[in-house]
């Protein structure tokens, strides 16, 4: 068996950009708005989701032949809930500040549509290795959008990146300069507009994805 066959590479790379969970499938928008006012929580959130989707995909894929069809959603939920709890506890133990910033949104990963979508659509029909690749790809595709949104929102809304000052202090009004942070960037609506710009760019680059007018 070829671990990195063409098909497997495709499984990994399509959700990163062409079939991006946020930009194309429009899943996980809620958390993309909620946790991206700074880059750091966006990164941590993206990584947490990547880990959870990848592991949940593997576990469900291993169990896929033994799960009775009628209770598969409950089984999937139990697996995801376990993983979410582990990640949440790890964050609380090792990155307490970020977990406070993310607040309920770590726990709410369980309701993230990307998870159930990948489990239902992919892990239930495919082998563990493929499922793992699909999970990592989907998670990173989600993380990519979060990082793009978080990058612009933190840069323009706070003038920092990962809490490191990028726009020099001396440009600000209170130091005698002219610059001011854009307060709208910190509010959730601006995240939607940035997501919209990403989708705009993505559709412009991939004309196949453009919706046809009826």
């Amino acid at each position, binding site marked *: 068996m070829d671990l990195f066959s063409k098909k497997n590479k495709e499984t990994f790379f399509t959700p990163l950009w062409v079939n991006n969970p946020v930009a194309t499938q429009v899943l996980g928008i809620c958390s993309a708005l909620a946790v991206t006012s700074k880059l750091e929580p966006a990164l941590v959130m993206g990584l947490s989701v990547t880990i959870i989707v990848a592991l949940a995909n593997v576990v469900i894929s291993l169990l896929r032949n033994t799960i009775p069809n009628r209770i598969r959603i409950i089984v999937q939920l139990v697996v995801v809930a376990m993983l979410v709890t582990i990640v949440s506890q790890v964050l609380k133990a090792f990155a307490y500040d970020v977990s406070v910033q993310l607040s309920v949104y770590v726990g709410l990963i369980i309701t993230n549509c990307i998870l159930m979508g990948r489990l239902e659509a992919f892990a239930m029909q495919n082998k563990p290795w493929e499922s793992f690749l699909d999970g990592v790809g989907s998670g990173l595709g989600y993380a990519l959008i979060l990082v793009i949104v978080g990058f612009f929102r933190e840069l323009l809304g706070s003038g920092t990146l990962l809490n490191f000052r990028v726009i020099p202090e001396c440009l600000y009004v209170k130091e005698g300069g002219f610059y*001011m942070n*854009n*307060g*709208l*960037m910190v509010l959730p609506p601006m995240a939607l507009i940035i997501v919209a710009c990403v989708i*705009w760019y993505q559709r412009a680059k991939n004309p196949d994805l453009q919706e046809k007018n009826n």
Partner: protein
Amino acid sequence: MKALRNFLDKVKPSFEEGGKFHAFRSVFDGFETFLFVPNTTAKRGSHIHDCIDSKRAMSMVVIALIPALLFGMYNVGFQHYLVHGEEASFWATFLFGFLAVLPKIVVAYAVGLGIEFVVAQWRGEEIQEGFLVSGMLIPLIVPVECPLWILAVATAFAVIFAKEVFGGTGYNIFNVALITRAFLFFAYPVKMSGDAVWVAKDPLCCAGSENALLDGLTGATPLGQVSTGITEITNAVGASMSPMDMVIGLYPGSIGETSVIAIAIGAIILLWTGIASWKTMLSVFAGGILTAMMFNSIGANDVMNLPWYEHILLGGFCFGAVFMATDPVTSPRTECGKYIYGFLIGFVAIVIRCLNPGYPEGMMLAILLMNLFAPLIDHCFVQSNIKRRLKRANK
């Protein structure tokens, strides 16, 4: 005029198919049709013939805005000299205001038209004329102390995200000038609200007062004062204001919104030329007055206790009713819909003023909110008309 026409005719061939500036055809076309009425007409289909095209209609709105603009300039200078305690001649006052306001107009037009030209060029379309009005409205609805770069950012945002992505002039859901203001309001609240931004305090390069500022000046807008619990409205230096002062409009506020007289002249021009709908205008005032009366009778806070005529005279109510609510693109097309739309704008504006302590002025948000509902209002009336006629036909 003749010389201009001759010049245009002379350079025209180089912009046509095969000419050396063919790539800039849309720019040339935009200028030519702005300066002269084009002599092309629709070839087929039924059309209503009218002597004015949309560029001429837009020009009339710009003309209607000029009284408010000139008064706004004078008021900027007047407030400046007032807070410095200096007497200045009429022309010195006007010159200061002119120099303070002119850069805003230039920036709004340069940024907005620049984006429109680039987009038209890029998509190979004709240049649309919608920004002629928006570019004049934007400077009139911002405080005088709003920095130019912020104005440029907001204008660019509004033109791109409120207009071009929807398909350009005539397709926008929201009023572009109000989106500019909303962007400024939420993105840079320090420069758009509070007490410090409504009066130009620093002298400009060649005009203005060198005196120190007077003590005890507030600089807050009347509605700002009311929302912070001041019951007796004062002007920038603390003298109390009568309703007549509110009509004349020499008090701090956004550049073009203060004078009811100047706005009334604009309203007369718009109504006389038939560009704005009297139904919308009338119903905005009706909605505002009735809602204000209703809140007067409740009277639970200071804003509710503000008499109804002061609600109408102060803030952006008149300006919004005359120039913003009547925007033909973003208001309903059905005649009955205009009553509902206008009435609800007046209603929501006063409700925001009275019930939301965070926003002393609700006109901007009220009009934007109703812009959103204009297509729905149209839909309901069109459907009910269809139903009524079907019923009549089937009888």
